[in-house]
C-alpha cells in the first residue's frame, strides 16, 4: 500500500516538474528582460584614490578573483571606449545619488551620464523639444517626397543605361532639380538643428560637447518618483515595440523585426491556408479510401515529423535557386547578374514556411471537418443541394473553427521558426520594409527581419553584447507572449470543437 503511494508521488513530481519548467522559462525571460525598462538610479561612486564615476550599478560579484567587485555602467562609450567598468568594492570610498546627475539616451554611442551646468532644465527641455520637432520634419521630408524622387531617378537611370531608351533625360533633369531644391532646404534645416549644442560635465570633470539633435531622451533618474518611474517603464516597453533599432540592433526598438514577422506570416497564410483546406476537404469529403488517399494521408502525418532544417535546405535549393533563378532569367533578365528573386527574399521564406506548416493546417482542418455532424450533410443533400453546395454552405462554415485552429498553430510555428529562414532570406538589418508606400507596395523580393532570428543574431553576433542583453531578453519576451497568445487561442478554439464533437457523439 505504501509503495504504491510512493509511485504516485513520483509521477506527480514529474508532472509538476514539467509545469515548473514552463513557468520557469517565462519567469527567467521576464526577470532578465523587464528590468531594462526600469529607470535605474545613477550612482556617484567615489574611490579611495580620488576618482569619481557616475554610473548605474549593473551587478555585484562578491566572489570575483580579487575580492568583491561591482560592475558599473558608466556609459559615455565615445569617450571611455566601453560601457561597463568593473571596480573593486574595497577601493570604493562612498556611493551617493545626487539629484542633478543626468542620463541621456542618444542616437549613437549609447547612454551618456553627467551633469548639465550651462543651461537650466526647463530651458534645455524647450530647446530639445524644438530641435526634436525639426528632426521629425527633416525625417518626414527625407522619407517622403525625396525618397520617391530618388527612386524614380534610379529607375530612370536604369532604363537609360540598360535599355538605352531615349527621351528620358529631360524627365530626369526635372526630377534632379526638384530633389536638389528639397535637399537644399533639408540641409539648411539640418544645419540649423545640428548647430545647437550643450555641454555635459562628466564624472571626471571632462566636458563633452553634445548636440541636441542626437539626444533621444533626457532623464534625471535620481529625481523621479516611483510613480514616474513606473510610467517611464511602461512607456519604454511600448517604445521598444514601436521604435526602430539603433546602434546595429543593440539599442532602440524592434519594430522592423515585428513587422517582418507579421508580413511573413500573412504571406505564408495566403499560401498555406487555401491549400491546406482544399487538401483536407479532398481527403475528408471527396476521396474514397484507396491506396492513393491512404498514401497522401500518411505522408501528411509523417511530414509533420520532418525537421525544419530540411525544409530550409529544400527552400534554398528549390525556391531560391531553382524557382527564383528561373523567374530572374525570364522576367528580370535585364537586371542580371543582380538577381531580383534568385536570392533570399520574403516570398521564399513564406513559401518555405508554408510547406513546413502544411501538415499542421491539414491535420487541424481534418479534425474540424470530422466535427461536422453527418446529419447536417444529409439534411442538406435531402434538400437537393449538390455536393459542392453542401461543402460550401454547410461543411466548411461548420468546420471553420478547426481550420482556423490549424492556421493559428501554423502562424505560431512560423513566428518562432528560425532555421529554415536563415537559408531563405532573413537578415540582420533590412531597413527597407517589405511593405511600404512605394509602388507596388508589397516587395516580395525584399529581405526581411524576423523576431526569432533577431534573438539569435543579437544574442550571438552583436559586438556590444553587454549592452544588448536588454534587447535580446525583451525580444524573447515579446516573441514568447505572441506565441503564447496564439497557442492559447488555438487551444481554446480546439477545445470547443472537441466538446462539440463529444456532445454530438461522433
Amino acid at each position: 500500500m505504501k509503495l504504491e503511494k510512493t509511485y504516485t508521488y513520483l509521477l506527480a513530481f514529474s508532472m509538476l516538474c514539467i509545469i515548473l519548467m514552463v513557468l520557469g522559462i517565462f519567469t527567467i525571460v521576464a526577470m532578465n528582460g523587464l528590468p531594462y525598462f526600469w529607470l535605474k538610479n545613477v550612482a556617484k561612486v567615489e574611490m579611495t584614490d580620488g576618482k569619481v564615476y557616475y554610473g548605474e550599478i549593473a551587478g555585484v560579484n562578491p566572489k570575483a578573483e580579487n575580492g568583491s567587485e561591482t560592475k558599473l555602467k558608466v556609459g559615455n562609450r565615445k569617450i571611455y571606449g566601453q560601457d561597463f567598468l568593473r571596480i573593486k568594492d574595497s577601493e570604493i570610498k562612498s556611493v551617493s545619488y545626487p539629484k542633478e546627475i543626468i542620463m541621456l539616451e542618444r542616437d549613437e554611442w549609447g547612454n551618456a551620464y553627467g551633469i548639465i551646468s550651462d543651461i537650466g532644465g526647463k530651458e534645455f527641455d524647450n530647446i530639445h523639444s524644438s530641435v526634436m520637432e525639426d528632426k521629425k520634419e527633416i525625417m518626414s521630408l527625407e522619407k517622403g517626397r525625396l525618397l520617391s524622387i530618388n527612386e524614380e531617378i534610379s529607375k530612370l537611370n536604369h532604363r537609360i543605361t540598360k535599355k538605352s531608351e531615349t527621351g528620358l533625360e529631360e524627365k530626369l533633369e526635372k526630377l534632379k532639380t526638384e530633389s536638389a531644391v528639397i535637399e537644399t532646404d533639408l540641409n539648411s534645416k539640418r544645419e540649423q538643428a545640428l548647430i545647437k549644442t550643450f555641454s555635459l560635465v562628466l564624472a571626471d570633470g571632462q566636458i563633452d560637447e553634445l548636440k541636441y539633435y542626437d539626444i533621444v531622451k533626457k532623464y534625471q533618474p535620481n529625481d523621479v518618483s516611483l510613480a514616474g518611474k513606473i510610467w517611464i517603464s511602461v512607456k519604454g516597453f511600448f517604445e521598444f515595440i514601436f521604435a526602430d533599432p539603433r546602434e546595429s540592433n543593440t539599442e532602440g526598438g524592434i519594430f522592423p523585426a515585428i513587422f517582418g514577422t507579421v508580413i511573413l506570416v500573412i504571406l505564408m497564410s495566403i499560401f498555406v491556408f487555401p491549400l491546406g483546406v482544399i487538401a483536407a476537404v479532398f481527403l475528408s469529403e471527396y476521396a474514397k479510401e484507396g491506396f492513393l488517399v491512404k498514401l497522401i494521408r500518411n505522408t501528411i502525418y509523417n511530414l509533420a515529423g520532418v525537421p525544419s532544417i530540411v525544409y530550409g535546405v529544400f527552400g534554398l535549393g528549390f525556391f531560391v535557386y531553382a524557382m527564383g533563378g528561373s523567374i530572374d532569367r525570364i522576367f528580370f533578365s535585364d537586371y542580371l547578374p543582380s538577381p531580383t528573386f534568385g536570392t533570399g527574399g520574403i516570398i521564399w521564406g513564406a513559401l518555405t514556411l508554408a510547406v513546413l506548416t502544411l501538415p499542421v493546417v491539414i491535420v487541424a482542418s481534418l479534425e474540424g471537418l470530422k466535427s461536422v455532424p453527418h446529419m447536417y450533410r444529409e439534411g442538406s443533400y435531402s434538400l437537393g443541394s449538390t455536393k459542392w453546395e453542401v461543402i460550401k454552405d454547410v461543411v466548411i462554415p461548420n468546420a471553420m473553427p478547426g481550420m482556423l485552429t490549424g492556421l493559428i498553430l501554423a502562424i505560431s510555428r512560423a513566428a518562432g521558426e528560425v532555421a529554415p529562414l536563415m537559408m531563405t532570406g532573413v537578415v540582420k538589418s533590412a531597413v527597407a520594409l517589405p511593405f511600404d508606400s512605394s509602388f507596388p507596395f508589397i516587395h516580395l523580393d525584399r529581405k526581411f527581419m524576423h523576431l526569432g532570428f533577431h534573438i539569435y543574431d543579437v544574442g550571438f553576433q552583436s559586438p556590444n553584447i553587454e549592452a544588448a542583453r536588454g534587447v535580446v531578453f525583451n525580444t524573447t519576451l515579446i516573441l514568447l507572449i505572441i506565441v503564447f497568445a496564439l497557442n492559447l487561442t488555438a487551444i481554446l478554439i480546439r477545445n470547443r470543437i472537441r466538446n462539440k464533437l463529444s456532445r454530438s457523439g461522433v
Partner: protein
Amino acid sequence: MMRSAKKELINKTARALFAAGGVSVLIVIILILIFLFKETIPVFSGAEITGKNSISVSSKIIGASISERGNLISYVFQGGLSLVDRNGANINRFDLPEKILSAEFKKNTLLVADADKIYLYDYRYVSDGSASLDSNAELISLFQCPMPKGMKTAVVSSKDDTSVDIIYYGDKRIQLIKYSLGGNIEQVKIDTEILSVIKSAEVYFDGSLIAVSEDGRIYVIDESGNVSDVLKEDGISAFGMLTGKRGFVVADLSGNISVFSSSNREGSSSFHKIHKIESSGKKVTSIFLSDKDRTFAVIYEDGSMRLYYSTTEKLLLEINDINGNMLISGNGKNLLSYGSKLHLYDIKNNHPDISFKALFGKIWYEGYSEPAYVWQSTGGADDFEPKYSLMPLIFGTVKGSLFALLFAVPLALCGALFMNQFMHPDLQRLIKPAVEIMAGLPSVIIGFLGGLWLAPVLEQYLPGILLGLVITPVAVIFAGHLVEKFFTRSGGEIYGKEIFIILPVIVLVFGTSIMFSNEISTVVFNGDFKDFFFTKTGTPYDQRNAIVVGFAMGFAVIPVIFSLAEDALSFVPREIIAGSLALGLSRWQTVSGVVLKAAKSGIVSAVMIGFGRAVGETMIVLMATGNTPLMSLSPFNGFRTLSANIAVELPETAVGSSPYRILFLSALILFIFTFAINILTGFIRGNMRKESK
C-alpha cells in the same frame, strides 16, 4: 434543367479542384525528395571524359604546360616554345636555347637545362582584360647559370617577387639554393651528401627536402642539413609532392602507390604511409599532380594513365592510349598528354574528394598520426585538405537526442501517466494546455536560454543541481507520506490533488540544494566538481555540454512525448480499467498491470517520435553546444549535429560544390530518418488501435 447542368458543372469543377489540391500536397512531398536526391547524387559519380582534341606537332616535345582554364597549350621543342590554342592554331612563339635536355614548367616559371647550364624564365599566361580567358603568354628571361658540379637535374621549388629557390640533385648529392631574380646566389640553404642515387626531390611544407632514391629510400633533409633516412620502400619508380606540400606520392617497383605524410609527435616528425593503392600489375613510369586539389595522374609503362584522388584513394578515370606524360590544368577540368603528339581531354571531375569511405569511414589525413573521423570542411587556404566525415555529426546527432530523451522520457511519461490516471479532472483541464503551450515554444528561445543562461548556471551549481535531482523526489515521497499520516484521516482525501503538497517541497528542497551547491562540492567532490571529474576521467568539463543540450532539447521533446503518450493512455478503454478495479486490484496495480500494458505500443511510438523530433532539432543545438565535432561519450562534452552543421555551413557554400552536396546529403539523411521513424510509429499505432478495438 439548364440550371442543374450548370450546377453539375460547378460541382464537377469543384471536385476536380479539390482533388488537384489533395494531389498537389503529395507532389510537394515527392518534389522535396526528388530535389534532395537530385542535388546529392552527383557526389558519388566519378570523373568522365567529355571531349578530346588531338593536336599534331612536327617536332619532339621536351616539355609542355597548360593554362589554368585549359584553353592554351605551350610546348617546348629544340630551340623554341610554341603557344597554341586548344585546336592547335598558333598564337605565339618564343625562342629558347638549342640543345635542350629538359624543360620544366612550374608556377609561372620555365626552367630549361642543356648539358651544362640552366636557364630560368618567368613564363605566364595573360589575358587582355576584356576576355574572361587567358589569351596569350609572356616569356621573360630571368637568368642563366652553370649547373653546379656533379648535379644532373634542376627543379624550381618556389618563386616569389624577389627570389627563387632551385633544387639541384645529382647521383649522391642534393642542394637547395636561393637565387635573387637577377641570378645572384643569396643563400645555399641545403647542400648535402646522400648515400644512394637520387631519383627525385621536392620541398616539404616545413622547408625540409624530401628526396627519394631508386633503391627505395626516402630521405628527409631538414633546414640545417641533417639527413634522416625515414622510410624504405621496395624500390621507387616515381615520386611527386601533393598540393599543400603536406604529403607526397610514391610508386614502388611493383606498381603499388603510396601516399606519405608526417605527424608531429613530441616535437619530432614521424612519417606514416597514410594511403595505399594496390598495384594494378603494371609498372609506374611517372606521377603528375594537380595544383588545385589532391588529384594525381599515374602513368604506366604500357602507355595507360589512371587518375586518382589521394584522400579518398578513389580511382577517378582511366585512359589507355596516352603517349608519354600527362598534365592537369589549374582548374582540374583538362588533361593534357604530350609525347609525340598533344592530346587535350576535357574532363568532368567535380567531386573527387567524396567517396563512401570519405563520408563514413576512417581516413588517414595528411598531418594526422592515425586514421580518424574528422569533419573540417574548409580552411583558410586553397590547398587545404577538406575533411568530410559525417560520422562525428551522426554520432553527435544520436548523442544529443539520447541525452534529450534521457531527461525527457521519464518526466514526460510519468507526467502523462499521472495526469491521465491520477489527476483530478479539473486540474487536468488546466494543465493540459500548459503542456501544449510548451510544445509551441520556439526552439530559438530554448536554445538561447540554454546557451546563454542555463550553461553558465549549470556550470556554477552543477553539484547542487545533481543532488537536487536525487533528493527532491525522495523528499517529495517522504513529505507526501507525512502529510497523509498527520493531516488526513483516510488516505484517499488528497487523491488527485497531490501536486499541491509537492509543490512547496520541490521548491524548498531543490532551492536549498542549489544554495548549498558550493558546500556540497567541497564536501563530496573535494573542492570542485569539474576538477574531480577531470582527474577521475581525464575528460575536461565543457561548459556547453551534452547535459545542457539534454535539458534544453528535452524541453522541446517533453511536450511531444507527453501528448502522444497521453493520447495512447486515453485509448485504453475505460471498461478494462473499471473491470480491473472491480476485481479488487488497487489503482496502482491497475495502472501498472493493465493500463501500461494496453498502451505499451503507443508509448513506444511516443518515445520514437520524440527521438525523431530531437534528431532534427537545429537552433537549440546550434546555440547551446559548442558545435564541436567530437566523438566522445562523456556527458560533459559538446557535440555537433547534422542539422546544426547544415545551418552553420550551408548558407556559405557555393552552389554545386562538394560541401554543398554533402550538406544536401545530410538533409536527405535527416529527412529519410525522421520519415522512417514516423512510418514505423504509424505502423505501431495502427496495430495498437486494432488491438484496442
